[in-house]
């Protein structure tokens, strides 16, 4: 697994946020920027490095603004990782909606499916399996893609993914399973060429 397994809750971090919001927030960013950025990069179809950075930063800024309004008990009850990823996915969907309304904003020309850049076959030929796999993931339908990324790229437990997606665990498992099956199928096809 690529990510260290952080617990769903993080009492020390939440206590730091209550104690001094800005100091605690610096810790929150340090602890979760890698997972937030990874999900932004791998879930937001067509989102490239710089856009993923903007998206992740926007997510943290929204989180900060929410935290300013939360009282002590509400902060202490947070599950920071699931909470941040929920904000991230909402931010991304809002950006997509905004992009279709106002064509000139950043992240405007995101294709609905299929990643830009070299095709999968070309990447296989060049031996770039990491980019190839990323391109295949980007081609998954949204629910499957998000579920697979949260489960296998950043290693969240199924229950936490279900909370982020707002769907039952069974549905979550089925999204993961279908996504993986589709990846295997395409992966085999590309490698066989």
């Amino acid at each position: 697994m690529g990510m260290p397994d952080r617990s769903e809750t993080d009492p020390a971090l939440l206590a730091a946020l209550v104690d001094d919001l800005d100091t605690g927030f610096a810790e929150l960013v340090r602890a979760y920027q890698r997972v937030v950025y990874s999900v932004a990069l791998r879930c937001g179809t067509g989102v490239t490095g710089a856009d993923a950075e903007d998206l992740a930063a926007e997510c943290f800024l929204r989180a900060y603004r929410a935290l300013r309004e939360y009282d002590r008990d509400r902060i202490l009850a947070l599950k920071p990782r699931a909470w941040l990823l929920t904000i991230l996915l909402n931010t991304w969907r809002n950006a997509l909606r905004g992009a279709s309304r106002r064509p000139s904003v950043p992240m405007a020309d995101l294709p609905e499916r299929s990643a830009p850049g070299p095709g999968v076959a070309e990447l296989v030929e060049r031996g770039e399996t990491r980019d190839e796999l990323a391109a295949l993931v980007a081609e998954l339908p949204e629910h499957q893609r998000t579920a697979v990324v949260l489960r296998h790229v950043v290693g969240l437990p199924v229950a936490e993914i279900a909370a982020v997606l707002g769907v039952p665990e069974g549905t979550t498992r089925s999204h993961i399973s279908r996504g993986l099956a589709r990846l295997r199928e395409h992966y085999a096809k590309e490698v066989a060429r």
Partner: protein
Amino acid sequence: MTGDYLDDPLSIELGNLVATPPRDLAGALFGDWTRVDGPLGELYVAFTDLGVSYIRTVESVEDDDKQFEQRYHDLFQRPLRRTSAAPVGLQKALRGQGARDVPVDLRVLTPFERDVLTATREIPTGQTRPYAWVARAIGRPKAVRAVGTALGNNPVPLLIPCHRVTRSDGQLGQYVFGAELKERLLRAEDTNVDEVLTLAKSRFVYVGYDGVVCYPTCTRARNAKDPKGFRSVAAAEIAGYTPCDICTPAG
């Protein structure tokens, strides 16, 4: 049933898709603040990765870090942290050199407010322009009051010299840190304040000499011998004067 085995080769390869942000995201989120020496005493300064975003005099926040932070938070809704290094060029700019080259972060403002401040930044040291001049410079000649409001909300006074914008009747007018400080700043920049105020007593806000009509603070006007006062550019034009192409007097 789920195909959900984390030691499966595909799963391991998916795990390799984790990515580290190209730079620490805290840099894009946090404002940094420090204290620096200004032309008339110490200043609190906050800045982001884009530029200087907030300047307050020490007096205006009662020399209290917490009060400065509180005001920053209310205005910007961003986290803030203390630093010891001021942005490059800021100290020099506050001593009067290269103020226009120091990047500013005006994202918190409306496009109108940004236009007002951008035009104001063009007013040279030692000179003043009336609110109406700024209004005309941004193509909104009737928005004189709104210009005054925008300047009153200037988050980066001194760096963007809103103290150089004065009332159209020649009086110095209000300032975000008080009228008294405005006058002291103008005098510290060697603006000919006494001359301006003397002219204003006779309701003269323009001066003409040698066939050209200027604002009284224009370098050209200040070198003139025995300039003649005018109450409007129109009156000066009737008397045969042409508007100065350096200070571009309006109204």
